[in-house]
């Protein structure tokens, strides 16, 4: 029984079958990659996991509980954090404030009206946030206006914001999209480190095979809304069906 169990999920948009009978099981403390050509339904599947979309049929269980019908913030409170394809951060806030918000969310739940105590009297949360920033090498940028940072820094900040919540499951939506090779490698190293240090499950959608094969323990290949194969990276590499559907063209 994996930490995330997707069973028989179907999703249609009008006449388009975006997802057809998707079954997926992600084991705890592994890194599971979902790959597939454009339009394979990867993002739709992701959106079904985090509450942005509700599947027409099927079930999505996380940690023994159904996520269906829950809102994104409820699902996050269950322990799923998501990194977006283009970094979603609070651009108007400083880096430190960006970090504090998930700290508050983790400690106080989805809503708490602490109107009077100053943000910066929260020493414990501050320490957590600083520690996390240290981990991603951004402590020196903590007072920066986050919108003015580079894209790579924004990505790292977003990752740090997700990680500081200590999620059980981290969803990564093409985390290295648009990055230079060096940045990509840094990200891979960061993720590897995270994997080693923490009890965390990672599900990753990625185009860059270098990233996928560096990180993934298991890979699911999605094509036209249906899982084609699910196997270890070694086996996927040589799988004829995958080559035909995906790698063939990529290679």
């Amino acid at each position: 029984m994996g930490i995330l169990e997707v069973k028989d999920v179907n999703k249609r948009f009008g006449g388009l079958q975006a997802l057809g009978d998707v079954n997926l099981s992600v084991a705890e403390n592994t890194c599971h990659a979902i790959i597939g050509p454009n339009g394979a339904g990867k993002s739709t599947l992701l959106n079904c996991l985090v509450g942005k979309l509700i599947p027409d049929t099927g079930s999505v269980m996380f940690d023994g509980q159904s996520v269906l019908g829950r809102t994104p913030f409820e699902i996050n409170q269950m322990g799923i954090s998501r990194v977006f394809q283009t970094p979603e951060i609070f651009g108007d806030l400083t880096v430190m404030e960006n970090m504090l918000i998930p700290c508050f969310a983790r400690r106080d739940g989805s809503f708490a009206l602490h109107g009077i105590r100053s943000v910066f009297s929260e020493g414990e949360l501050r320490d957590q946030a600083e520690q996390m920033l240290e981990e991603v090498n951004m402590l020196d940028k903590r007072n920066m206006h986050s919108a003015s940072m580079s894209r790579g820094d924004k990505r790292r900040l977003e990752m740090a914001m997700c990680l500081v919540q200590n999620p059980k499951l981290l969803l990564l939506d093409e985390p290295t999209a648009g990055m230079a090779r060096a940045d990509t490698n840094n990200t891979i190293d960061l993720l590897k480190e995270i994997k080693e240090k923490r009890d965390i499950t990672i599900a990753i959608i990625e185009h860059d095979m270098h990233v996928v094969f560096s990180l993934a323990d298991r890979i699911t290949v999605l094509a036209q809304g249906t899982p084609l194969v699910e196997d270890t990276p070694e086996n996927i590499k040589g799988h004829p069906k995958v080559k035909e559907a995906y790698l063939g063209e990529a290679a």
Partner: protein
Amino acid sequence: MFGLDKKDASLLLIVAVLVAFAPFLLNPFPEGSAMAQFNAGYPDLMQRFVIFGIFAIGFNILFGLTGYLSFGHAAFLGVGSYAAVWMFKLLSMNVIPAIILAVITAGVFALIIGYVSLRRSGIYFSILTLAFAQMSFALAYSVLTPITGGETGLQLALDDPRILDGANQTNNIPVPGFFGMEMRDSTDLVLGNWIFTFNVGYYFAAIIMLISFYVSIRIFRSPFGMMLRAVKSNQQRLNYTGLNPRPYTLAAFVISGMYAGLAGGLMASMDPLAGAERMFWTASGEVVLMTILGGVGTLIGPVLGAGMIKYMENIISKINADILHSWFAFLPDGLEDLVVTMIYPFIGKGWHLTLGIVFMLVVIFLPGGLVQGGQKLAGLFGRKKAEDTKTATTEPAE
């Protein structure tokens, strides 16, 4: 100090000093001088400055922090006034129960309207709030006349019960007071040609305004304020960070509605009459303009904007042709007439024109509102001071 950091504390202190000495600062010109027309240090206008300041501070908590533009905030001000006047009529002329009821009633109204309106965002939210406020105005002006007084406004009458105050001994309607201190009591200080008026109502409202300002600073600096800015910045991220934006925005809406109710209650306390025009869309628009004019999302900006608009409305509108002639009487006749003719369209009944021009000039040349103007000025006069103002007043909320 008071749990504020140094910059905020000094800003609060500066505002407190300005407010305390407003009767001097607003009356800089000696009586009888030509410039005395520009003196604003009389009780009614000073009261208006601080009351509309409260209104704008509250509005800014919603608009400045969350970015939700309510176009119906005057409804809460109006509801607060009605509640306060009803307290004067039924319970007591003491302002405390009136103001408390005003705040509560406005809060309840804001909760209902906010709950419904916050289901939408952007312009759709603005129009929903506008629609609620316009409905309140239309009904208060007509169908609800028995409760609101309709066109003539809700007024006190000699035969109101006022159950806590006991029988009215005089044949005059009592005036609102604070445990024996009447809001309209004033003391004059005569210094040579200068006269400074210290009014109980003004100082009462000013103290409440300082408290409101302090609370607003605390909200700006609190985790709650940070969440509100996060709402404005990126709701999607907030959702995926496990936070529910709705109760945050609703709380901000209710708090700012209560500020509006407080302002309404104070207005009624200074002048016990509540008219339906207070809820008309132009009144809602006015607080929007005050906030933008002063500087959205800055702490002190809305207060400056409120002061500016009320000053124009009350001072510029009262300058008439005779006064102009008296100013320029030193010029030769023909020239005097020419100068007067040129200025005349902008003063007195043309005060709206001046207001419109000021709006345009400010927004064109000072995109950050009057606060930015202040910063520029401060920048001219010294670096140290500029630094202070800048950090104290502009959190990067915009």
